[in-house]
């Protein structure tokens, strides 16, 4: 079977991301800046190919690529890639690639296991501008939450190392990455996944909320991050607790995402 251009670009970007992860790990182990630069370049090229793949799929399918689980995972992983480049440009901490690249790769692995056929015709229920608002914002938000999870992994990997060196960022810096990512993801998730989804559901199915498994999963994710934010504001659940909880949030998102394969309801699509 001949792959379409977007599938080829997917695999090329996947292997380059994997190469960048290996290089980031080597950089973290050996501390050689040159290896880190090569890792960043590899990651950047992978992101360019990733972007090209999404664009190609958009052109081939004649609609924005959000209608299948594969396309959603592609978008979510793209957000993680862009977030890493932004964080890198702002804070110049290449070592963050050690945790963010594997999080991205995990999402791409999930995507690789899903059917990749292009549906040129959107089903009638998806033919609405709310579809683009809802899915885009939800994907960007979940990408931000996954970046937070990557920060959580880095925080735990840092362990009890005191002070700061050129390689390993200080604790409060990692905490701020986690906190910022969650505070970027939360409003987008609230507006995109919940509000826009509810308004769209009202127009398409006559009800703002029908306790569909995917809707309920989104509510569970939202309540989790609401709890996390309230505790963060109180000064509780900082440090290691925040790191662990950001990873648990990642697990909830993955369960909610993969729930399509097992749960029924309006969101039961592949």
């Amino acid at each position: 079977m001949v792959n379409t251009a977007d599938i080829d670009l997917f695999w090329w970007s996947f292997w380059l991301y994997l190469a960048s992860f290996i290089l980031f790990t080597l950089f973290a182990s050996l501390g050689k800046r040159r290896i880190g630069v090569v890792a960043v370049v590899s990651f950047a090229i992978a992101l360019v190919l990733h972007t090209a793949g999404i664009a190609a799929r958009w052109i081939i399918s004649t609609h924005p690529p959000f209608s299948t689980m594969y396309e959603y995972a592609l978008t979510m992983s793209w957000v993680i890639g862009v977030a890493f480049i932004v964080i890198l440009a702002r804070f110049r901490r290449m070592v963050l690639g050690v945790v963010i690249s594997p999080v991205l790769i995990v999402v791409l692995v999930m995507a690789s296991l899903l059917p990749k056929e292009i549906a040129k015709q959107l089903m009638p229920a998806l033919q609405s501008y709310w579809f683009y608002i809802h899915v885009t914002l939800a994907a960007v938000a979940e990408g931000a939450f996954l970046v937070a999870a990557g920060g959580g992994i880095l925080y735990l990997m840092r362990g009890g190392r005191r002070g700061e060196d050129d390689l390993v960022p200080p604790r409060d810096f990692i905490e701020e990455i986690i906190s910022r990512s969650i505070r970027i993801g939360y409003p987008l998730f609230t507006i995109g996944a919940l509000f826009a989804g509810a308004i769209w559901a009202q127009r398409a199915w006559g009800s703002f909320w029908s306790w569909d498994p995917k809707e309920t999963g989104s509510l569970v994710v939202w309540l989790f991050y609401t709890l996390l934010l309230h505790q963060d504001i109180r000064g509780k659940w900082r440090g290691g607790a925040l790191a662990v909880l950001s990873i648990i949030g990642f697990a909830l998102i993955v369960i909610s995402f993969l729930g399509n394969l097992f749960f029924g309801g309006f969101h039961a699509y592949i």
Partner: protein
Amino acid sequence: MRRSIISYRFAVTVIAILFGTSAFGWILTELVPPDVPYQREIYRARWGDTWLWLVERLGLHDPFHTFWYRAVLALFFIVLVACLVSRWRSIVLRTFRSEPPDEARELSKRDHRLHLSWRELKWKSRDRRDVLDELEYRYGPEKRLAPGRMEAVFGVISSFLRGRGFRVSKTKEGGVIRFVAVAGRWRYFGNFLFHLGILVITVGGMVGSFWGETEILYGTDGDILPLGGTPYAILVDGFDVIMTDQMAVKEYISNVSIIDTVGNRLVTTTIEVNKPLRFDRYDILQSSYYVDEEAFRWARVRYSSGGNPVGTVVRLEPDEAFSLEGFPLVIRAKRFLPDFKIGPNGPYSETPNMHNPAIEVELEGEGGAQEGWLFLYYPRFNSRFDLPVQLSLVDVAPVYFTGLQISTNPGSMVLLAGIAAATIGLALLYIFNYRCLKGVMDAEGLILAGTGYRWKVSFREEFEKVSAGLVDALSDLGGGDA
């Protein structure tokens, strides 16, 4: 008790409980089938009396409509109301007004502090010190700012902070200036608006849950469907399913009219998915459709002989006998299945969708009658007749039933208002980063302190820049020299 309900800790506890019960309900929807009330004997045999009783009593087959989940939602609602009512004034005041510190001691609680003395500033501003300057620096009196200079120096501080986006207000009493510089104060209002929006959404949701109604009605061309309890009705003028070349459903559209009791058409329009019709207090949505699993309007069949690919196409009504020209045969289209499958009891339609449309035909001639199936999408599976004629199905017009959802939700506008308020609140929360600097200035020096609300590391960097900038600005003044 009142203090407990409005406490932050209690609010967080309630959110945690709501999260836990929602997660529990989410899992339950996968473990417990929803049809328990309709298949009680089957589940009694499977689980036993005790488990069945437990499931029914606790509503585990439908967890989000149970008493215990509604109780948690009610608690969430009460806490939200309590928190908003108890805090709205302080939040609104903080948005529009900030209080300067009462004493310098109050500033010691803040994360970041800057102590400046005019004496240090004066000497810092001097590039070189001669012997007399050095003696004055080491042993001279404390530098005190002349009263006339206080306002001018504060003007420099205020101007500097305003240039960095802070809003500055001050009080002066007995030679001491107390000031507060605030940026991003609209964040507090955004916080309030967001929580208010969530409350309004909850109210709208409850109203809709208790007083909303919905039903799906099916009808075909010419059918009249009731419109709730109103004196109006929906007349189905027609229904179309538009397919792509690859036989995927592109869209389905109902042509409807709203008629009154005497049949006058008040509204004539189309209803599509995502484009409902609003009439009176009802929303009429294109919900679904299905194909009648037996009836059809007509079928077009091609017949030919000797492998002739062109043949002749005839249109057959259900059970209509048609003589094939050039053949001593009569054909009838007897039965239609939109999604042909073979089961233990023979052919049946697996779904009411046009996945595998097939027509059963009967060919009657001198030797008797033969029956067989013709498939629209898979002609190679057509039945072979022991007759010198080839048949193929060209097209079939099924009888579609459109599914129109009639719903009313009195809480709809409330819910949308809540969404709008919460969205604006979130936007304010996101756009504005609240920072607060408080200071006390007297004849001897200045104390400035601040706390970052969201980004601790970034605020630390900002405070360091503000401190350095202030020192430079005041040093340019000569440290407050008269």
